[in-house]
């Protein structure tokens, strides 16, 4: 009895009071759906009531096998990889570069450029997708522009399976770089200017200031940006849905679109769709752990 009383301290009660609501919400909207999705991926569920449905049976990893044997899965995975590469090695370095140039006042009208780079982020993704779809259309401005330069030029961007995703990658780079720029800009402003001034007085070049002061100070932010970029890349859906719908012939599909296709387009296959979503969660975990590992090994020199 005495032990129970000791365990149920005011501090513990306060702790539980603060933590339990967040844990409950997290479990309800994140953990439970993930676990439930995994269970559904092992069944033959094909619509209708889930609970109390005697027709639902466990079928093992059949849907995972089907997924790995489907060429459109690999096309989608490859496209996700390309989007991730553009996000991590394109958006983040570019975002940092813009932020650095503006913060260090290496260009005039910094506020203007900041607005210009960030502007795409405030436009609805669906509208952006539609606009760029029209732009890259074989009858659109891009084609006309190219035909002015090279008469008779045929817009075959989407016909080559290796090139079909390129316009999409360009739009992703254009659209989301501003987010990272703002993130880096906010953190650059937190670095003590006296530190940079002292380095300059000691004879450090701009390049040395960047490498020795700025980048180490931002390693935590870079890791956060990488995690956001990776998770954002894996869940990218809306822009592609509006711009290409994953077509032609699913050559611009990504895992989320591939999952959507299997869940809701033409021939619903909910267990397969759940298997795809479980795979996406696993890939996210692995990649984020990889980033964490990299940061622990090579980063973290803020001190």
């Amino acid at each position, binding site marked *: 009895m005495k032990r129970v009383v000791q365990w149920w301290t005011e501090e513990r009660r306060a702790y539980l009071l603060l933590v339990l609501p967040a844990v409950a919400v997290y479990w309800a909207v994140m953990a439970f759906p993930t676990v439930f999705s995994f269970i559904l991926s092992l069944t033959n569920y094909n*619509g*209708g*009531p889930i609970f109390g449905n005697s027709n639902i049976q466990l079928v093992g990893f059949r849907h995972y096998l089907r997924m790995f044997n489907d060429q*459109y899965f690999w096309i989608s995975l490859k496209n996700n990889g390309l989007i991730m590469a553009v996000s991590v090695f394109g958006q983040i370095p570019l975002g940092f570069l813009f932020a650095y140039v503006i913060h260090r006042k290496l260009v005039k009208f910094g506020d203007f450029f900041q607005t210009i780079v960030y502007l795409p982020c405030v436009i609805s993704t669906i509208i952006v997708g539609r606009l760029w*779809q*029209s732009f*890259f*259309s*074989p*009858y659109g401005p891009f084609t006309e522009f190219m035909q002015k330069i090279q008469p008779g030029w045929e*817009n*075959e*961007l*989407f*016909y080559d*399976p290796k090139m079909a995703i390129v316009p999409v990658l360009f739009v992703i780079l254009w659209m989301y770089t501003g987010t990272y720029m703002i993130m880096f800009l906010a953190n650059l402003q937190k670095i003590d200017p006296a530190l940079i001034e002292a380095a300059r007085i000691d004879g450090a070049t701009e390049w040395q200031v960047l490498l020795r002061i700025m980048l180490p100070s931002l390693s935590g932010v870079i890791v956060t940006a990488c995690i956001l970029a990776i998770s954002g890349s894996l869940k990218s859906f809306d822009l592609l849905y509006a711009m*290409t*719908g994953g*077509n*032609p*012939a*699913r*050559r611009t599909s990504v895992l989320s679109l591939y999952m*959507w296709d299997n*869940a*809701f*387009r*033409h*021939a*619903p*296959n*909910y267990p397969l769709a759940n298997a795809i979503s479980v795979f996406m969660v696993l890939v996210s975990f692995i990649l984020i752990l990889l980033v964490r590992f990299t940061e622990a090994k090579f980063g973290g020199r803020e001190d």
Partner: protein
Amino acid sequence: MLRKSTLLLLVLLLVASVFVPATLAEEPIKITVLNYFDLTAPGAEREINEVWYEFSVRNPHIIVEREDLFLEPFHQKTEAYAAADKLPDVVFMWPGGRSTSLHTLGLVKDLRPLLGDDAKYYQEAVLAPQAGGYLAELPQTMTSSHALYVNVPLLESLGLSVPETYEELVAMVPVLKANGLDTILMGAQDDWVIQSCLFSMIVGRLVGDEKLYEILRGEAKFTDPEFVGALEFYAQLYEDGVLNRKIMQTSYAEVNGLFATGRAPFLVDGDWKVSNFLTDLTTGEALIPVDKQPEFKMTIFPAIPGEINKASSSGVVGVGFGMNAKIPAGSAKEAAAWELIKWLQGPEVQKMRLETAGTIPSRIDVTSDNIEPLVVERIRYYEDILVTTEVLDNAFEGEVYTPINIGLQEIGLGFATPMEVAQRTQEAFDAWFARQ
């Protein structure tokens, strides 16, 4: 005493005036509706006012909660509702195809008993049993999923005329190309378009429904020479320059403006596309103005070498509204839902649809003298069709026609051969067939 009784009477009357109307009045009945609706179509405003608003005025005791969706989002939401077992009370449906699961899983009611004597107002063909073997939706129209729209003045300006045979069509290609024009436009970025609006017609011409039904019964295969031959003819369309790969980069909405502005003399689409060219009452403008509409012709694809069905087009008995099977029989809710479905296929609404979209009425008592020339042309167009054959996505389950949809784009892009697509389709069919 008299005063007291008068006072009592007055009090009673006062109480009655407050409570009786409330108890006698009908309880409002809420009906949820999933509606297929193109809000950008020129006739959209008339539909909102003359169909939905008018129904609420005439039936104040029925509260309609409507959800409007169009194209893929509609189908995807329907599947999501069906999967979650939360289908709306009244739902827009196809007689098969994308709505097959609603029919075969019995998620909607058989409307024939509710229709009763009113059946005499409908053309007999539209009341035939649908994919589930019963009348799951009350059709509002007949639909041809294939039509060849022709810009006649554009053709004539180049010394050409509407082709009667495929060879004549192929002979036009160099002339059109020399003038910077495409031959046939299609908004085929979405993969259903080629299958529904072009390839189903080709299959009807070269394969025929009998063979399709044999495949459906497992007595023939997609890999048989007839079906592969249809795929090979489709592939030839690209080799001959009749189709350009650009169609797969052209969105379904973008193609309307391209055709109206003369980027090609031909457009292949369903007969429903007419509604996108008509006058928008809110702006008074039309993609093809009324005075120009007589210059546009609707016909069918020219004769294909080796065709077994002459002058055929693919089509289905039309779309309509069905009722959730969960609504209790004989309930007030069933009566309200049926009232709405009857209204949606009633003479006033079908007349409005005829005027705004040229929709061929399924009722025999609907006519109008207020229709634009393209609507007249859509009605006349049916005279060109001698045989109506199946639309593939109406005849087969999604699992089976999806490889065809994707495969047609792959053939066009050179990623797959006709035989490869036929084999993949057969594999999908075998898997589906094994579960039946």
